[in-house]
């Protein structure tokens, strides 16, 4: 079972993820970003008929929290510069301090800007057999 949720934050947007595996944390982070980048008062979008493209992402970082920040930052970069909203993953390989992924994305015009992924309260930790992560996004 996986869960992500948005935590109340006066100024920005705080994302919390709890997942069965480290890999699933990254999958859920992408799903959360997809929701954030989608428009409409209900926060959802209809992808029917949208043009889909694939992008390869390879990132490295010194630890898991920074790798999560880099992952979210890369997806936000694709949204800002190419108007891409991530829809699915065809490949996701997670190694020691590295992530390689093929992201299937919808070509859209997301109106919501994610300026950056901050290091404030950034976390990625094991809790028993589950994993918990947190990131605050500047929006």
């Amino acid at each position: 079972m996986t869960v992500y949720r948005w935590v109340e934050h006066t100024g920005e947007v705080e994302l919390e993820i709890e997942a069965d595996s480290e890999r699933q944390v990254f999958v859920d982070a992408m799903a959360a970003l997809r929701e954030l980048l989608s428009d409409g008062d209900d926060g959802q979008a209809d992808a029917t008929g949208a043009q889909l493209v694939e992008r390869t992402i390879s990132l490295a970082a010194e630890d898991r929290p920074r790798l999560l920040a880099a992952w979210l930052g890369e997806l936000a970069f694709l949204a800002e510069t190419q108007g891409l909203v991530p829809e699915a993953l065809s490949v996701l390989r997670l190694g020691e301090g590295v992530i390689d992924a093929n992201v299937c994305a919808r070509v859209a015009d997301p109106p919501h800007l994610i300026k950056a992924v901050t290091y404030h309260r950034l976390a990625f930790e094991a809790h028993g057999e589950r994993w918990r992560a947190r990131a605050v996004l500047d929006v």
Partner: protein
Amino acid sequence: MPAQLTRIDEVVWELPAAARADMRVPARVFADSELLDAIARDDSLEQLQNVATLPGIVEAAIAMPDIHQGYGFPVGTVAATALPDGVVSPGGVGYDINCGVRLLALPLSSAELGERKQQLVHELARAIPAGIGRGAGRALAGVDFDAVLVDGPRSLVGHEIATEDDVERTESGGRLAGADPGCVSKRARERGEPQLGTMGSGNHFVELQRVERVCDADGAGAFGIAEGQVTVLIHSGSRGLGHQVCSDYVAMMDAALGRHGIELPDRQLSCAPASSPDGRAYLAAMAAAANFAWANRQVIAHRVRLAVRKVIGAEAARTTRQVYDVVHNVAKLERYGRRELCVHRKGATRAFPAGSEEIPAAYRDVGQPVFIPGSMGTSSFVLAGREAAMQRSFGTVCHGAGRCLSRTAARKRVSGSELRRELEAAGITVRSPSNRGLAEEAPFAYKAVEKVVGVVERAGLANVVAELRPIGVVKG
């Protein structure tokens, strides 16, 4: 409310340095009792105490009355570190480097604008790209991007996008010295270059206003604004370029904390001595992003003038005058007495008093103009800096109303379409690409700007010159 919070005077509260073992200076808050209650409801005060731990910080970590929870620094903070050993913190400037507001005064009254208001708001929305910002969709022919990074709006004078008068009436002349495009990453350029002249999203806007009342005739006379006059307030920043510069240097300084022997309660406060190679590289990149931000607002102002020309006429566009451009996210090297300080203003505005050589000659008798936007649909205020600000807040005042509700909570209370109808019913023409974004910026999500400005005035930091009421808004 923290037990050790002590009232110093009518509008100043303080947590002593002894409140926490890692604090180097007190944490000081400008607020009245009501605002303080709101401030104490989120993590603002804890974050302010974290700022008080920065190496080299002097006097106090100071919060303005619009303070709210942020990341690292709370939004609405001024913190000065003493050079050469004091630190510079990229997170203490924020991602939207040199975000600020610019006020333009049109040569007509709202009565003279009359029915053309709707058309003018429509043309402003057409002329100024908003939203996530995949570029302006129109090239700025012949503009040298490196020149923009080094010289800001001055680089646009020869392109008929800026005038000498615009540049003169901009904080720091629209240029921070020491900008080095070589310290700006390829990715930052890639994000920012196509966005020159775009508004962005979130709380950015271009607002059409009417001068509702003048409170200080001398100040208003010097600033060239009169009751009933139409003004345009532009709020935007350094777009993806600034966001990426901050991201790059937060990561770099976070990785180098051990090398500099710095321990912090929050990684987002990552920093380096301002005089170290890391610190100097950040300041050079930050200056480039700051110059880009001023140029960005300059291009937006140019596009406002194009809209004015189309709707009102060429002479009105030519005589649409820039009152001033002020900044609320930056770190500047400033001298106070014998000390040279790196003054971080994060959601806080410089407000130098009459007599300062840092402000345009035309305003030197009345003080630096400061613009405090309210929330959407509420008043904004024009202030003038006063001498007490130099003694009490490193020449700084607030930057806005300050959020008090999260975006999610705002969306739960009103939909974008409902809010749009309410604003239109109040006589405010609205253009926004996103209903969700509109709802997130609902007026009730912010503190009352009148109370925030009132605290600033009672503290003697600035005086109110005029109140501006919105009559149209183009939201990012």
